[in-house]
């Protein structure tokens, strides 16, 4: 396929509609990133207000998912896009769905954080540091890849997802060991394991977004390769 940039669409309404759809995805991603940061702050600062903020703001993200679907259908029905325009619309709708699931994981983390905040602080929380760092980076990079139409960055994310899976497993194994040594804090360790799993799933959604970016930019389907 060619890689040269192309000219704007002859129909300015079409360009406007595509820009609007793209803008909605980026707005949704920005709100989701904020919610995710609120959940993590609520966890480490032991502040329920951050957690509540994240949970409350999820509704706006749900509405944005619906809006993106509506805008995508509108573009398809009005302009019948083909080639890269069609790929962009399809990918935007799929990316919207993945972002919504990331936002759901932010809510799950916030709920688990509120439960942890009911008990004394445990230093084992820092076992999640690497998982948190990588999952947030992956989500940010997935959205950056979409914003910049950067397929190379998107391809990298697939490899990083495997690292995240390993970090999640290491953290989970370590927390299971602590559960055996310290059964008093078993519910807290369980909540941490669930949080780690939420973060690992955020990585999965970031990888899904990356796959959709590669499809939109290069017309290549990189799903389920190497399995």
């Amino acid at each position: 396929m060619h890689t040269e940039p192309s000219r704007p669409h002859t129909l300015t309404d079409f360009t406007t509609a595509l820009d609007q759809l793209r803008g909605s995805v980026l707005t949704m991603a920005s709100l989701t990133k904020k919610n995710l940061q609120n959940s993590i702050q609520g966890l480490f600062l032991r502040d329920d207000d951050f957690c509540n903020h994240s949970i409350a703001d999820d509704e706006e993200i749900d509405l944005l998912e619906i809006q993106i679907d509506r805008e995508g259908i509108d573009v398809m029905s009005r302009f019948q896009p083909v080639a890269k325009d069609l790929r962009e619309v399809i990918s935007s709708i799929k990316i919207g769905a993945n972002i919504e699931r990331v936002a759901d994981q932010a809510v799950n983390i916030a709920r688990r954080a509120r439960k942890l905040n009911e008990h004394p602080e445990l230093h084992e929380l820092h076992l999640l540091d690497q998982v948190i760092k990588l999952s947030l980076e992956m989500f940010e990079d997935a959205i950056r890849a979409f914003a910049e139409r950067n397929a190379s960055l998107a391809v990298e994310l697939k490899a990083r997802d495997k690292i995240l899976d390993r970090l999640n497993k290491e953290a989970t194994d370590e927390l299971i060991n602590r559960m055996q040594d310290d059964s008093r804090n078993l519910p807290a360790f369980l909540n941490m394991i669930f949080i780690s799993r939420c973060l690992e799933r955020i990585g999965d959604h970031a990888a899904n977004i990356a796959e959709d970016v590669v499809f939109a930019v290069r017309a290549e389907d990189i799903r389920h390769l190497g399995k």
Partner: protein
Amino acid sequence: MSNDYTSSEAHPIQVSHETARPYELTDVVSPSKTNFIKVDDFRFFYGKKEVLHGINLEIPSRRVTSFIGPSGCGKSTLLRNFNRMNELIPGVRHEGDITIHGTSIFDPSVEVIALRRRIGMVFQKSNPFPMSIYGNIVYPLRIAGQGDRSMLDETVERCLRSAALWDEVKDRLHESALGLSGGQMQRLCIARAIASRPEILLMDEPCSALDPIATAKVEELIIELKRNFTIIIVTHNMHQASRVSELTAFFYLGNLVEFDETRKIFTNPSKLQTEEYITGRFG
């Protein structure tokens, strides 16, 4: 190499006065995907002006191939060369060759009338003759010398059925064709085009004057007819090309820019020019 267009050995579907019979969709000829029409470094000139610049193209049989491109790109000019219709225009000439089944259509031994009997054509504007529906269908057979009434009756029914028009007109076959709706007239023209059992059907924007329902009926007909005919359709409607054709050729300024499977052209074209045209970023 044989230049005899009426030789039954050279061509699986023979058209002659003796054997002409109405086409049946149930006539299953083994589906051939081999290249059938070959355009070889073809250049075409209106006077001194070259309008097709060295086109190379191989069109397989019994598939629908769309020619797309902006006005003036040469797609209709190339289409009209397949049955040598352009020769009706004074001052035209060509270089290169077009072969069908390996035989040049420009070979001196080829009779243009026989060639056109093998290559039916449907135009942008339906052009029924000012005679009855029945008379339109049998016209090509009558001028070919066929007079057997029962055979003509059978031809009319089968061609109209093939064109999905029989049920709508069977009770008024002897009424004027000019009383039909636009969509019916176009399907009548398709029925007439297949009456002489051509191998190839050329369609030059066949739906551009039709409403969406009539367009859908013609498109359905095209998909049905490809089982027995090699169809080449010129269209400005991108979505029509993507719906009905398996192969698409994109022309621009007399050049063939890209020729590939339709699915590839409309999802991931190889050339920037193609993408800009089909996505509406052209001009």
